[in-house]
């Protein structure tokens, strides 16, 4: 409670233009748990496929796309929408853009599976997708810089994802199979880091103490066993939302 911003103290008489007004804050579970899990899944499946970890064939791509479309795509986009209520501009932006990307990527393969379009072999060059990766890279570098405000750890993770998108755009435009493999493994690294953040967010909240450090700027949030958070709840009233959990 002592960490309330002092700036809030000089509130006026609680009215605005003569109307009694209050600022209403509603706690929710962190949507980035879902967002990071979904994003990690997309990076992992896409990365392993373009890296050649499994054969980069059309058959394997078609086996992967429904999960990418639904979990990585809609899951991450849903996390972005809830991030507005979590008042997290960075999460809303990165999860929203990548969620949309995975939905589009899945639909692209759906159209290929239906014979509506015929996709080229990625390793031979795929300029249209490479063009989109330019903007995914620009956006992800921007969110990484924004994440640095609060969490150097998340800055590193998002920078790795941005680097993967950057390499992928160059590889797809130039038609370099070698660089595409490299991009794939960097995506896998980003997947591992995103997985870590999702795990840390969930475990720290559930156990009420720091189980896995998030590498945030506030040192207290990184010290194992520390309890930097004290959610407002009424356990005796019992209902989900009034207490944390169900």
């Amino acid at each position, binding site marked *: 409670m002592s960490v309330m911003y002092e700036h809030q103290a000089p509130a006026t008489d609680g009215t605005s233009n003569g109307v009694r007004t209050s600022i209403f804050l509603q706690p929710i579970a962190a949507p980035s748990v879902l967002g990071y899990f979904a994003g990690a899944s997309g990076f992992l499946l896409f990365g392993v496929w373009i890296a050649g970890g499994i054969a980069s064939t059309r058959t394997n791509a078609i086996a992967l796309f429904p999960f990418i479309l639904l979990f990585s795509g809609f899951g991450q986009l849903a996390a972005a929408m809830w991030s507005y209520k979590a008042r997290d501009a960075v999460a809303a932006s990165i999860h929203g853009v990548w969620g949309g990307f995975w939905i589009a990527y899945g639909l692209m393969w759906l159209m290929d599976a239906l014979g509506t379009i015929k996709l080229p072999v990625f390793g031979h060059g795929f300029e249209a997708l490479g063009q989109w990766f330019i903007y995914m890279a620009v956006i992800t570098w921007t969110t990484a810089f924004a994440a640095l405000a609060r969490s150097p750890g998340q800055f590193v993770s998002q920078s790795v994802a941005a680097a993967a998108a950057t390499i992928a755009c160059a590889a797809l435009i130039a038609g370099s199979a070698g660089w595409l493999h490299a991009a794939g493994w960097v995506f896998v690294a980003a997947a591992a880091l995103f997985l870590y953040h999702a795990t840390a967010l969930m475990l720290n909240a559930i156990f009420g103490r720091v189980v896995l450090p998030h590498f945030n700027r506030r040192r207290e949030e990184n010290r194992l066993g520390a309890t*930097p958070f004290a959610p407002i709840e009424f356990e005796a009233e019992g209902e989900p939302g009034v207490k944390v959990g169900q």
Partner: protein
Amino acid sequence: MATVATHQQTATANGPVPAPSVFLQPIAPPVTLGLWGFFGSTMVLSTLILGWWGHPGPTDIGYFFVFNAVIGGLVQFLAGLWSFKARDYVASSLLTMWGTFWMGWGLLQGLGAAHAVTIPPLTKAQPGFALWFIPLGTATFVGSLAALSRRHGNLPLWLLLFTVGVGSWLFCIGLWTGLSTWQDVAAWFFVVGACAAWYVGSMTMLRSAWRRVILPIGRLNKSSNVPGTQLEFPAEYLAGNPGVRQGQS
């Protein structure tokens, strides 16, 4: 105000009517996601029209139209809907409008890819598609007038809406006549507008994340343009769950 005062003073058979109370709920700024969707989609198509890459034919468009339809369309549309909660008149109307445009354009290209319809090349006059850009351009231009507001507007937002609004009208002429010169000029307007969209989206997100000005906001008062200036002081309880405090981790 007068309405409120009247209600406060009115008594009914059941006693006095309680005074109304307004609650305000903070959310993260939705405009960033919407404008970034617009940025990516507009850049990919405009640079294709300008000949910076690929060929503006069914093959290349068939590969990427779904990305424009989802990221520029669905995602921007959703950000537009969230902008109602942000009480943002310009973003709620224009992000939603351009989101529906990209979804509609994607639908048309999808029908073309499925050989249900034939999409004519840009060099062929197509007044039907050209008509889309009259309401798009007009509503966006009206938004640019709103962006001149000293309190709610700013220079990058005005640049974005002005270039996209005028660019839409020019593109309408280009499509109506089938003249590529008009289309190329319009595409340049769109490229400038898309870059401004990235700037406005990034500026807003960085200001929220860093809690201070990072990229100059482009308002007439000096403090909005000096990096490092703290303009807002969010209400929060830092030990609480997301929503009670700003952010998650």
